[in-house]
């Protein structure tokens, strides 16, 4: 059963309604601003990713070309037992051609990696700077797929014209 509110009850009701309204409005505004901020950053981040993506996709032809080149040029290992020997022979031939003294060659067993099968060869050299540079220039060309995995060159303390080198090189064959 309803009855008319007294003026004090009305004032109290107005105050309570005002507090509820203000509180509700505050929560709404707070929720709105936080959601808006989250959405704005989502949109900004998404747009940034899209821009980078479009830039990358703009180079897709280049990467397609490189992929095709890799597939065409990367050597395929036919015989794991002879691959190391072939690499050693090649290096020895180059050393002879450029008058670089090759010492202590060691062939490592083929190593299967995610992108390639590496056949490594360790050796030491002794030569002046100039033949060594020519040797290195001939050793590494793109179509040979030879990487120098580590190198240490040191001037001979007794003869400053001679350079001692310790190399670990590898030919990277296409993975199976």
């Amino acid at each position, binding site marked *: 059963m309803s009855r008319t509110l007294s003026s004090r009850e009305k004032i109290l009701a107005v105050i309570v309604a005002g507090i509820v309204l203000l509180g509700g409005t505050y929560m*709404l505004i707070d929720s709105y601003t936080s959601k808006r901020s989250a*959405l704005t950053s989502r949109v900004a981040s998404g*747009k940034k990713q899209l821009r980078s993506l479009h830039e990358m996709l703009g180079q897709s032809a280049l*990467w397609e070309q490189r992929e095709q080149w890799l597939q065409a040029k990367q050597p395929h290992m036919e015989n794991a037992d002879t691959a190391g020997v072939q690499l050693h022979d090649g290096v020895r031939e180059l050393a002879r051609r450029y008058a670089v003294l090759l010492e202590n060659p060691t062939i490592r067993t083929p190593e299967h990696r995610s992108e390639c099968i590496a056949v490594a060869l360790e050796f030491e050299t002794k030569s002046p700077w100039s033949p060594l540079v020519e040797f290195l220039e001939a050793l590494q060309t*793109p179509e040979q797929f030879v*990487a120098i995995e580590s190198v*240490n060159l040191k*001037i001979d303390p007794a003869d400053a014209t001679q350079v001692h080198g310790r190399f670990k090189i590898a030919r990277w064959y296409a993975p199976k």
Partner: protein
Amino acid sequence: MKRTIDALYSILPQAEGWAVWSESQRLHIAPTLTEAVALLPLGGRLQFALPCHPLILERLRLPATERDELAGMVQLQWEKALPFAPEEIAGDFVVVATGETETVVWSAAAAQNSLQEFGDVWSKANRWPERVEPYICHIAAACPIGETVLVIYAEQEHWVVAIVEDRRPSWVHVMSASDAEGFAAEFPSLMLTVGLDRVPTDFRRVLLSAEVLGCEETLRSASQAPVEALPLVAPSAEAGINLLPTYWRASARHHRQGEVWKKRAIFAAAVYLFFMIAGATDLFLLQRQASSVEKELSAQRPTLALLQSRQARFNALSAAIDARRYTVELLYLLNRCLPEDTVRFTEFDQMPQQWRIVGEAPSATLAIEYLSRLKRDPDLSGNEISADPPRLLANERAQFQVIGKP
């Protein structure tokens, strides 16, 4: 600027109940005031005509003076004659005639309690009239100008006898009789009272409403004036009396303020709602935009993955196929930065994670210059180059060591 004038709606007491009028057009007739008020259209100004029975109607002879002073005298008269406090009385008067020494006024007053039954109806409807006047004032305003007229009519169950002078009520009496027989018995004594009160009785005509037909004989025996039918009386704006009680006035003001606040509240709610809708729309649009961007990203993801896998494969093999990463290329770059022939390397290391050179220079200045040349070289900019301060050797040369991380 044009200002719209609200329509005026009136409620008048009739023999058969209450009539609702819009300006001078009768819209409805209702048996009770509650029903009549419910039939009022929304909006517009309201005016309410009171029947005579709850009113104290007096014809007073007062000294000739200004209207303000007359008002004071009439007020004094009510206070003396009526058993109510002055603030409980709602009253007004009209000047009927003004002589050299005296003024005749007709006053109508009511205790606010006696108007309670009407006030309750208006209160329940939450609407209040702007003007309240006796119905006889509307009848008087409908009489011919300059004539003294005897009017007999019915207000619901009450018969009313009124004398109108020049369209103003001059003397009014609510009869106890409500039929022709009773009228015939009561009317002669009323005329005697009228005579004693020195009210003009030389009527130019007698007007009878349809409900009191049957008493013509009595009237003809009392007056020579022609008896005519009272036409339908429309509300008049010239009634000249306003009996609006202070409580009604305050309630009307309160109601008006309430309406104003209600409109403001509705406006505020509309603004609030507008902002809520605008906010929700904004969030919705942003959400849609974010979804659209993410959808596009998802659609491109397989292409991106393929591209990234190609990049990763190429980069993993770059030490073997990218000439810029060959040892001889690095040696060339390191060599071209040497400031003089006297500066030379003594040791060089290269591994996938970093390279290192050790060398000697004739002075620390040249060693430092070499380092700064390395850092400035654009082709070495992809390397993070650092060096310790040069170390002076026993032969006065400076030994330096530089470390680079691709």
